[in-house]
């Protein structure tokens, strides 16, 4: 214990595999994950729905009783979380590793005041009095930029706006100054205008309390200016890992390239088209053989990719940049911008965001497709009867 490596590794996930048993078979939700999160870094996990991002987070928190961990370890400061007794685990949960959930309205208890819910953290982990806990809650609300925190602490979640609720969630998570904050899609349920504010709060807090953040998102755009490292997940596996620059400018996995090509950019000139990734993420019960991405991959070579499961391999020496593609070296030459400029030649359906905010799908040949009327009510959640 003489030399402390800088930066200190907080969380180490080693060859983690796990899944759920369902009547239809086993869902391989996490399949061989390896990653480290160091103190103070912002580690982004990116992927489509069902890629295993949230399950990974829940496995670290130990909040998914139905998830069976088959093998691997989750080391927290060198100690395996999976082998800990429940009491020790609870002390870490919330105290050292805290979590921010996606939908702050449903994640906050409707019958308790916001102040009480935030203060409860301090009561659990530091055993402070009810009064001291409330004072702490007010302090935390102030820290996340909620005006009139003393008054707000006495209010209920339904009296808060969406952005304020998420700030309150953040305030709750940081009450005990956790070393790691896991934020699972923290801005997805929010208005675009509020998203940036909430992300800024997260980043400011990270510096303020010197904690690491594991930011889970399906939106590469969110990651761009913020993350130190990015892990791209696909079908419960790591597709690519690297620094943000490596992922954005030197991506070596067809899936990452696909994600980048399907994302609108501020520096678009208008000549570019958005290129969607064809198809759907695979069912995790019947994962495609070989590389799980091969059925959707524009670079796939049917013979090899269908039969060989690619391991995560380093892109170059002396870097954390790694990709799980058999042909990662050949992807060096792929130019994402070029891909998008040339998309006009393909028979692809692309989406265009018009000035008034409506999405006007149009065919690449310029013919107008069906448009979404501005007044059309697109429900966000809970529109389907369960």
């Amino acid at each position, binding site marked *: 214990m003489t030399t402390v490596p800088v930066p200190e590794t907080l969380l180490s996930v080693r060859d983690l595999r796990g899944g759920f048993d369902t009547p239809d078979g086993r869902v391989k939700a996490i399949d061989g994950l390896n990653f480290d999160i160091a103190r103070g870094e912002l580690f982004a996990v990116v992927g489509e729905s069902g890629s295993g991002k949230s399950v990974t987070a829940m496995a670290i928190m130990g909040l998914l009783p139905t998830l069976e961990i088959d093998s691997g370890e989750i080391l927290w400061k060198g100690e395996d979380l999976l082998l800990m007794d429940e009491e020790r685990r609870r002390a870490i949960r919330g105290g050292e590793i805290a979590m921010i959930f996606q939908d702050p309205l449903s994640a906050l208890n409707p*019958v308790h005041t916001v102040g009480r819910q935030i203060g*409860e953290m301090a009561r659990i982990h530091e055993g402070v009095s009810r009064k001291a806990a409330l004072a702490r809650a007010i302090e935390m609300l102030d820290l996340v930029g909620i005006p009139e925190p003393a008054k707000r602490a006495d209010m209920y979640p339904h009296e808060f706006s969406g952005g304020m609720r998420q700030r309150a969630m953040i305030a709750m998570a940081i009450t005990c100054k956790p070393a790691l904050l896991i934020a699972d899609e923290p801005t997805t349920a929010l208005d675009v205008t509020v998203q940036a504010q909430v992300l800024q709060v997260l980043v400011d807090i990270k510096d303020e309390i010197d904690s690491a953040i594991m930011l889970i998102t399906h939106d590469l755009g969110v990651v761009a200016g913020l993350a130190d490292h990015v892990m791209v997940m696909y079908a419960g596996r790591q597709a690519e890992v690297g620094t943000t620059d490596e992922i954005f400018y030197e991506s070596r996995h067809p899936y990452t390239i696909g994600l980048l090509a399907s994302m609108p950019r501020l520096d678009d000139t208008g000549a570019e088209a958005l290129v969607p990734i064809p198809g759907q993420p695979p069912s995790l019960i019947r994962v495609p053989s070989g590389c799980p991405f091969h059925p959707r991959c524009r670079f796939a070579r049917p013979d090899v990719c269908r039969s060989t499961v690619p391991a995560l391999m380093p892109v170059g020496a002396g870097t954390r940049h790694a990709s799980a593609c058999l042909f990662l070296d050949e992807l060096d030459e792929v130019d994402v911008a070029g891909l998008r400029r040339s998309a006009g030649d393909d028979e692809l359906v692309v989406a265009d965001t018009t000035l008034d905010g409506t999405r006007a799908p149009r065919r690449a040949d310029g013919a107008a497709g069906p448009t979404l009327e501005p007044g059309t009510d697109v429900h966000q959640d809970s529109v389907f009867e369960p």
Partner: protein
Amino acid sequence: MFAYFVRRLLLVVPTVFFALSFLFLLFFALPGDPATLLAGGADRNPDPGVVERARERYGLDEPLYQQFGEYWGRAAQWDLGESFKSGRSVNDILGEKAINSLRLAIWAILIEIVVGISVGVLSAIRRYSLSDKLTTIATAAASAVPVFVLGFILQYLFAVVPEKQGWPDWLHLRTQGLGPDTWTFFFIPTGEQWRYLILPAVTLACVSTALAARMTRGSMLEVLRADYLRTARAKGLSERKVVTGHGLRNAMLPVITLIGLDFGTVIGAAILTETVFSWPGLGSAIADAVSERDLPVLLGLSLAVTIAFALVNLLVDLSYAWFDPRIRLGKDAEV
């Protein structure tokens, strides 16, 4: 909150008025002339003169609207009239019977709340376990058994069987009457009293308890899946504290409504229970008043029951607002 309370309190007045007006009209729609009954009953062929005198004496010869108006005029001053049958003041009868019904109802509702809710919660957290399955079967059975059948079964099991088998005396429960009428703080049975109370109270509570248990189970299962319980777990709370501190209050919302509405069911069931156990309460008195066409007693006791029902529901609404801040009044909740 206070304005809401007053508004709700005022709403009790029309509720009671309409309920009793309905009862009043229903009484005259019943077959059998009250005057004939008063004069000795139809089967004894009373003298027509006696019948007429009875009709006159009790004001039954006046037009219906006049009787109705006079009754309300007196009732407004809390004079409930005299019994056709015994001539006793209905206010006295009410005072004597109401306390016994209240004792029974308090215990029945206590059983419903304590047993029903805890069984429901345990059943929900041990979902699909053997105890959960047994509970589901038991509650289904309990809510299906008619009150009087259950009363007789319990009487047989806890009074007849111990007697026949010569079981020790403390296992031997009483089945008829009020008993020694010894209470501490008006409703806590003292001495031998509990032997008389326990069977009618359990009988009265049975159906409601089963319903409360089922409702709690369903509501708790819903809440256990809620995101905010996941948040509570993520804070590092123990599962017990997650359930009691964050789950219970949310899960109670539908159950509270049920218990409030159930008060009406309990009153209905009390008529049967009190009759089966000869418990001298409002229920058996109302049942007697109906069969004896004793209008003042029927109306007076029903008035008391209706007011009690309205007040209990007011309390339920107020507690609902306490349990769920989203419907707390005076603040405009968006939700």
